[in-house]
């Protein structure tokens, strides 16, 4: 079975632009979570979605938004990009919220 897949793997944007990152969960998993990992730090929780509803939100500005589709895939959107948004963005899926999370390989976002 395929693991969690994320696209694109790398992305370069400039300040002020908008970006959309995509995540496909493991088949049968209904929960998707998003994390931001800045170099040298641990992943920071952004959102958790379960059955297409937002269940948890971290301390990120409203420029960050996400949604989950009927097939349980998910998108993370970031508006008005700042230099500080440069990071590895990780997606994880699980059967449901508190179950073991499985991570994709991430999207490396660079802001110029």
């Amino acid at each position: 079975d395929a693991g969690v897949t994320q696209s694109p793997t790398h992305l370069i944007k400039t300040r002020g632009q908008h970006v959309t990152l995509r995540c496909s969960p493991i088949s049968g998993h209904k929960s998707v979570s998003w994390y931001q990992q800045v170099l040298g730090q641990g992943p920071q929780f952004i959102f958790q979605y379960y059955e297409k509803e937002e269940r948890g939100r971290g301390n990120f500005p409203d420029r960050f938004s996400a949604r989950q589709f009927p097939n349980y895939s998910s998108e993370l959107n970031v508006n008005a990009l700042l230099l500080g948004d440069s990071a590895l963005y990780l997606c994880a899926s699980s059967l449901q919220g508190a179950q073991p999370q499985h991570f994709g390989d991430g999207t490396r976002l660079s802001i110029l």
Partner: protein
Amino acid sequence: GIQVEQSPPDLILQEGANSTLRCNFSDSVNNLQWFHQNPWGQLINLFYIPSGTKQNGRLSATTVATERYSLLYISSSQTTDSGVYFCAAFTGGFKTIFGAGTRLFVKA
């Protein structure tokens, strides 16, 4: 919110040595996981261990939920064990909080 603290922050071992990594959390949690992040950034599941003890080869983990800590044991370390080890706690508020990690380097 819940705080997750890991120790030590950095660890250098000679190949073949044993080590213990610690994770303290400030409140009760619904789930605790240990991950290994390799040099390519991939987060690899090691253990899902909200309580009790589990073993997988040279690795084992123990979580004492009532005392709010978890330990990861690495025995007979190998150079391929190098990387960053994270613990992550899932809270009742549907959030997952990661510790800052323990950076392990195993010398040949």
